């Protein structure tokens, strides 16, 4: 049913720390690797060794140069489904293939119902959905619904593949509907933001902005160095220090 659930028990999502992401693509290929054999398998690649290589990916990392009057910074930017609270990609779906789960808020596609009209990808402002031309259906991030509850995985591994992989700890996972959860607190503490809030889709995933050039930036309250005032200059200072 493509009407949105009136109530959600949880709002599971990701928090992505742009201050820490180095753009290494670890989350990208970990996602590809898990999911190409996972719930929406396969994530088909066309012309994989040719000049027009293309494939289905649920997570992509861009890089940007952000320049303000305070200075410039290179920002690596992972982009995936934000599991919005009011996702138009769900409501526009004519078949009920696209849906938002009431239990945890994950936005999923029921492949068997998808007619491949692509309208959901038009409705998503974030480019979170990718079409598998080989299978003829739309595919997207499942928030690793086949990992986070998977009894066949060790309990500690039941997190999205991207979160488990991230070498800089720039990715976080949890219930963003619970203000007491660790992710919600992280968002509050670091001033996490919504992407394109003006769209009104109310994304669940949050992004933590870079700290450089902000009041949150690391700084060292160092005083300018003064030449030593001892007689004989620096070497005199050395002698005095040693004889103390």
């Amino acid at each position, binding site marked *: 049913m493509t009407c949105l659930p009136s109530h959600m028990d949880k709002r599971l999502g990701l928090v992505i720390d742009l201050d820490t992401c180095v753009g290494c693509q670890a989350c990208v290929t970990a996602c590809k690797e898990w999911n190409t054999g996972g719930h929406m398998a396969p994530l088909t690649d066309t012309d994989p060794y040719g000049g027009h290589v293309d494939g289905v990916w649920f997570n992509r990392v861009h890089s940007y140069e952000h320049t303000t009057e305070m200075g410039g910074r290179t920002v690596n930017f992972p982009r995936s489904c934000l599991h919005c609270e009011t996702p138009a990609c769900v409501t526009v779906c004519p078949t009920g293939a696209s849906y938002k789960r009431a239990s945890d808020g994950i936005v999923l596609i029921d492949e068997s119902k998808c007619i491949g009209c692509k309208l959901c990808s038009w409705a998503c402002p*974030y*480019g979170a959905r990718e079409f598998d031309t080989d299978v003829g259906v739309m595919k997207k991030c499942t928030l690793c619904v086949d990992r986070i509850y998977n009894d066949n995985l060790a309990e500690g591994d039941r997190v999205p593949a991207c979160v488990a992989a991230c070498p800089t700890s720039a990715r976080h996972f949890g219930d963003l509907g619970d203000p007491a959860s660790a992710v919600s607190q992280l968002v509050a503490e670091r001033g996490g933001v919504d*992407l394109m809030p003006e769209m009104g889709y109310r994304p669940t995933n949050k992004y933590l902005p870079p700290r450089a050039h902000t009041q949150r930036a690391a700084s060292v309250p160092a005083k300018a160095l003064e030449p030593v005032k001892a007689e004989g200059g620096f070497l005199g200072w050395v002698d005095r220090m040693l004889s103390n």
Partner: protein
Amino acid sequence: MHPAFSVVFFTTATGAGYGLLALLGVLGATGFIAPGFWLGLAGMALSLGLISAGLLSSTGHLGRPERAWRAFSQWRSSWLSREGVASVATFIPAGLFGLGWVVFGRLDGWVAAAGLLAAVGAIVTVCMTGMIYASLKPIAQWHSPYTLPGYLIFSGMSGIVLLNALLAGFGLGTNRLLAASILLTLLGWGWKLATWRHNDQLEIPTTANTATGLAGGTVRSLEWPHTEENYLLKEMGFRIARKHSAKLRLITQVLAFGLPILLLIAGFALPWPLEAVAAALAAISQFAGMLVERWLFFAEAKHTVTLYYGR
């Protein structure tokens, strides 16, 4: 947005078809058109043919067309589903109307009622189509007050120009219909110009800054996540050069509005059958022009996902 021919043709053809159907239904039911076998057959075949061809074409856009029937289920939330339901539902009164007109040779009573219902169905379906686009927030050029009226106006305009050609073909053309065709074409022209003007001056609140959550200053794409074009860029990253776009706008204006108006004006003066030829040429020119207009409707529409790619 990528102007896929299947979708360009679909909206253009169904727009014209539903416009014609609505006019046939209303004018037939209200007695402005007299029942006649050949006129009925031609009119219904043309309108339903355009509608069917358009709908068929739209399935060419589907990855799994064999599952198209599933699209009728989500009318409570989805404009596309509603369009599907409305389009199929419209076939019922339209079929009855055609049956009454062509087989029973009458346009009164239940046939008139069916005609009016078909007209309502046609208008509703066009509204649904318009709303598919108008409801898409990520595409500012579509998510605008101009989109839905535009679909209705263009549907009516193409419908009436087709009707004029049809009636003229049977020697039944009237100056009033000609005048109405010209007026609707002028309205369409004006609406299109206004739409373009609106779109050219759009101040879209969504920027690379809001897309990335990076406040202030400039955000410039350094590298894409992939070297070659992917689905998102192929589907939504279509770009058209300003020069190219201007040329196509000119072509649209000539074919869809300017030339048809001249031909229609000529209709006032020309004797039959030249009048009919001019009316047919006006319809053909306008249909071609509307294909270009619809191509531009897609090509000039910018999806927010392109912001991530620095486009």
